[in-house]
């Protein structure tokens, strides 16, 4: 990918920018998304107060948590300067594995652990092809997408997995009165955000995404880190699968349509630059919530469901254009 050098605005060394200015400089896009969510909630609430009923809030936050979890890993991959278009297919495959194990009578912890481990193994192969065979990530994952989508359907015939044991359905449970998917989403987002911001590993991902050659010159093992970030992304895909596979009483053993685009879009709208080197996982989670809110809001203001995608597309476009104008204003 091409290299973008994002020069900080020049200012006198003695002047330390105020807290708000620093916040906006570091989290500009995240704040835009957050503001959009708040405005949307306020408007729809006025039109239809039932929008903020506990039931609907659970649907919005818990029902889409798996997308947010998958988007965390995707954000890391994109920050490193790569892309993964196969994550939707991977989640479909992992959900089938997990469900099949649960129905076959294995202990539920195995059914939960298996997707995480398999996800890591699959993405280790993808990462190795990207890092060592030097095939562009979009090509590798495009191929992986076909292999997994085709393989899954020809293997299972797209049947439904039913009779899942109740103990397996973790996404339908609560801890301390909060739905489990919500807890997963918040805890994983916070941990990943802190890790990306303060750990040497996290910082090295930004360095690789910003300029891989310079990162190599400073002693960062670029190839190993590339494999590692894909493996971590696989683990997040596995965690997302646990939430996705257990939210209903059945699992359809096919690839959820367009899931990879939803996940990539969430990461990108949340402020992760597709050129690599910038963005945060907080943004991707906020963007997931924004999409979920839009989807739910349309139902509450009585817009035909057939227009849903058009509205979402328009809002994505508006967010992207606003971000571009904001960046232009800053430079």
């Amino acid at each position, binding site marked *: *990918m*091409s290299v973008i050098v994002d020069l900080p605005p020049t200012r006198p060394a003695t002047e330390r920018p105020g807290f708000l200015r620093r916040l906006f400089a570091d989290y500009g896009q995240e704040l835009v998304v957050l503001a959009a969510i708040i405005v949307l909630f306020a408007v729809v609430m006025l039109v239809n107060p039932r929008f903020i009923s506990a039931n609907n809030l659970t649907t919005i936050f818990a029902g889409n948590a798996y997308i947010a979890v998958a988007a965390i890993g995707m954000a890391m991959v994109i920050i490193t300067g790569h*892309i993964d*278009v196969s994550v939707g297919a991977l989640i479909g495959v992992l959900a089938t594995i997990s469900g099949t194990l649960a129905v076959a009578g294995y202990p539920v912890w195995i059914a939960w652990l298996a997707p995480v481990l398999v996800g890591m193994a699959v993405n280790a192969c993808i990462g190795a*092809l990207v890092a060592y*065979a*030097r*095939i*562009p990530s*979009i*090509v*590798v994952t*495009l*191929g*992986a*997408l*076909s*292999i*997994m*989508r*085709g*393989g*899954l*359907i*020809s293997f299972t015939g797209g049947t439904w997995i039913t009779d899942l044991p109740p103990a397996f359905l973790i996404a339908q449970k609560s801890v301390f009165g909060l739905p489990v998917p919500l807890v997963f989403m918040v805890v994983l987002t916070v941990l990943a955000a802190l890790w990306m911001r303060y750990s040497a590993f996290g910082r090295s991902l930004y360095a690789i995404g910003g300029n891989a050659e310079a990162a190599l010159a400073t002693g960062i093992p670029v190839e190993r880190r590339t494999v590692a970030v894909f493996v971590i992304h696989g683990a997040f895909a596995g965690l997302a699968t646990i939430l996705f596979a257990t939210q209903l009483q059945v699992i359809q053993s096919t690839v959820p*349509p367009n899931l990879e*685009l939803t996940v*990539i*879009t969430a990461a*990108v709208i949340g402020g992760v630059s*597709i*050129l690599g080197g910038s963005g945060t996982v907080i943004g991707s989670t906020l963007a997931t919530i924004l999409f979920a809110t839009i989807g739910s809001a349309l139902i509450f203001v009585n817009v*035909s469901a*057939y*227009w*849903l*995608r*058009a*509205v*979402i*597309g*328009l809002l*994505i*476009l508006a967010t*992207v*254009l606003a971000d*571009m*104008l904001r960046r*232009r204003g800053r430079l």
Partner: protein
Amino acid sequence: MNWKSLLRHETFLALLLVVVLIVLSFQSDRFFTVSNLLNQGRLMTEIGLIAIAMTFVIATGGIDLSVGSILGLTAILTGVFWQNVGLPLPVAAVAAIAVGTFAGFVNGLIITRFTVPPLIATLATLALYRGLAEGISQARSVRGYPDWFYVLGQGEVLGVPTQLWILAAAAIIASIILAYTRWGRTVYAIGSNEVASRFSGLSVEKTKLALYTASGFAAALAGVIFVSRVSTTRSDMGTGIELDAITAVVLGGTSIFGGRGTIAGTMIGLCLIQALKNGLSLAGVKGDGTIMLIGAVLILAILASNLFERSGTR
């Protein structure tokens, strides 16, 4: 660019195609018949038209993910303009193609005027255009077109499927433009180094705008051919076709980073994919199994060509 390495990738691919054709003709005696091969040509036209335009786009270092949605939108509009608005069918088809071309133009505007990376811009319009198709159609399909309309998608001219002539003409014109015109050299220059191209006085913005518009036009034309071939319109037409087209282009040796690629490579890649799909289905492998194999072929072909080159060029 070192044309020798280009030649090597395409030669390798052409050899692979020959091997696949031979193996498949041994697998099934129905494969290597004129009628079957012509029919396969019919089936690959829509992807082919899109892949030709996509070759230019990817050669500049860009990408267009919205082509499948533009195809769907054009298909829906053809039906709606004709049946609901009451336009004569030729006018309706041309109007729908005009809208599809405009959709490509909008992509180009977003990418050049607002400097949005192509992947994001077309990801957003992928959702937008498909959403418009769904919203306009309200899940209703339009059928019952007059017989003459099916000539485009189901008929023959001089014993060859009509749309195959269109594909052949498009491929020849496109390869001449890309290989022999100043404009084609500009495409490679932008893909190799956009900043340097701009400083060299090349009209980078205008070229890119034209390319995304052309990509929209190709997808729109493919949409009308699609409708004529399957005799109906549905809003989910063309879903995922962008991945098929990109696979053909990348398999054909066009660098995803830009600066490299030929129409001939894309066409060989396209034929290879279609031959595999058809040959395997004749050999009794289900459609989903072939998708799997195409993915593997994509990775292995790029891996093999990387190993062959061994030159340090990315």
